[in-house]
């Protein structure tokens, strides 16, 4: 029964990991850029929520109404003002610039908020649970986060496959020059993609802040989780990202069940096993030759 519980908690945790990973996957999928500051932006969003909650008195969930657009705007500005200048110069410049951003964000947060652990207080929902048979109980909040993860992935999937904007995203990823001949401003399209990614980052940051304590230095750890999630699921597959999150989540909770110290280790081992057996990821679409 305890093991069953660990698996269920792991699945639910996978929703949060999918939220971590969706933005990373989106930016990589469209621009082929790995945002090394991704985890730090998640933590930045959590701190933003702390500020919004403090100033307005809203709860953390309602603070999303402000934090999501703020982060989206920040994403657009970071893309147009910074990343766009690095894109046509090989793989290294975007990595260096986002690595620099990571350092800057961590130190800015440390300067403003100190190294103290913080937490977003969402009231009763963070501890309320639904009893299932016997000793099994599922927390309401993990269920909400899992659903948020599923909805975010489903939303991105619909955006990508069913809408004109999604078509423009895919075409821009294919061929930046020809897409301009269609009357599409490729720089604006990239900006919108990063804005959407940062909107999901905001959601991920607030969920993280309600679930656990956080401090300015834990961003890189979230980046690692996001990165492993994307790679396990397979690059370019949104549903794969959700499944990757679930697999990594189960690995973490099972590992923690064996011994709390094994939590991360089990995750890394599963990640390495997937890399060995299926380097393209478990749910990757076949690579198309062009």
């Amino acid at each position, binding site marked *: 029964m305890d093991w069953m519980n660990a698996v269920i908690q792991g699945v639910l945790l996978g929703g949060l990991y999918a939220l971590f990973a969706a933005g990373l996957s989106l930016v990589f999928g469209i621009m082929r850029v790995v945002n090394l500051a991704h985890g730090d932006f998640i933590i930045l969003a959590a701190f933003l929520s702390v500020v919004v909650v403090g100033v307005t008195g809203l709860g953390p969930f309602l603070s999303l109404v402000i934090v999501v657009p703020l982060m989206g705007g920040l994403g657009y500005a970071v893309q147009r003002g910074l990343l766009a200048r690095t894109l046509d110069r090989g793989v290294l410049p975007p990595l260096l610039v986002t690595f620099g951003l990571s350092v800057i964000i961590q130190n800015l947060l440390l300067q403003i908020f100190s190294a103290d652990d913080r937490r977003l207080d969402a009231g009763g929902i963070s501890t309320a649970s639904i009893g299932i048979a016997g000793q099994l109980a599922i927390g309401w909040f993990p269920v909400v986060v899992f659903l948020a993860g599923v909805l975010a992935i489903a939303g991105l999937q619909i955006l990508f496959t069913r809408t*004109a904007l999604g*078509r*423009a995203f*895919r*075409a821009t*990823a*294919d*061929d930046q*020059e*020809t*897409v*301009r*001949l*269609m*009357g*599409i*401003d*490729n720089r604006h399209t990239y900006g919108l993609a990063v804005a959407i990614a940062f909107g999901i980052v905001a959601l991920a940051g607030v969920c993280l802040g309600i679930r656990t304590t956080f401090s300015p230095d834990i961003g890189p750890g979230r980046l690692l989780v996001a990165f492993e999630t994307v790679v396990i699921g397979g690059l370019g597959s949104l549903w794969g990202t959700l499944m990757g999150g679930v697999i990594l989540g189960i690995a973490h909770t099972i590992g923690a069940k064996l011994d709390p110290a094994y939590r991360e280790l089990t995750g890394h081992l599963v990640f390495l096993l997937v890399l060995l057996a299926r380097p393209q990821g478990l749910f990757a679409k076949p690579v*198309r030759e*062009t």
Partner: protein
Amino acid sequence: MSLLSVHELTAFYGDFQALFGVTLDVEPGEVVAIIGANGAGKSTFLRSVVGLCASAAKAALFDGRPIGGRPTHEIVTLGIALVPEGRRIFPSLTVEENLLIGGHRARPGPWSLARVYDLFPMLYERRAMSGPALSGGQQQMLAIGRALMANPRLLLLDEVSLGLAPIVVNDVYTRLSTIVGEGTTTLFVEQDVGRALSVCHRVYCFQEGRIALAGSPRDLTRAQIAAAYFGV
């Protein structure tokens, strides 16, 4: 007034100058051909018109408005569509999505998905396939259909016959004559001189970045064209 009026256009690739003061006009309803040897600057000229190559502000007027130096996505929205060399179909998009994205910023006009499918029934049959799954000729028709979806006032075609079997080229040109027959102003680059002359109202022959000869096919002799083409 000319629909497209290009005056003393120059173009560079880094230090290499590709065009040396090209002056060219296209009147509404006209079909104008650009011929010339490889490297004469024909493709560069079309790319300059749509802003993919930088040009001076006053070097090109479209419907009287200066378009030189403006971003490509703004220029095409004014009503210019380019069928690029090599077709450049979006591989991640289906055939139908390739057409739809052509109409992303469409002007009002006669062309719609249904009308493009009428002209190219083979695209309708393959609408759910991915772009790269089509044959070269089908991809060329898709690229033309994609350009029409924008309802352009000026259609630019870059080497539509390149790399296609002669019988397929015939097919492509038969359909182009339908498009042109509807009064779509067209400026096209073609290496096949005979085919170019048989379709166009006027022809410009480029040679090493300059216009070596211009006129109506009726008024030009084979010898004149050969001299302008090869520079002998």
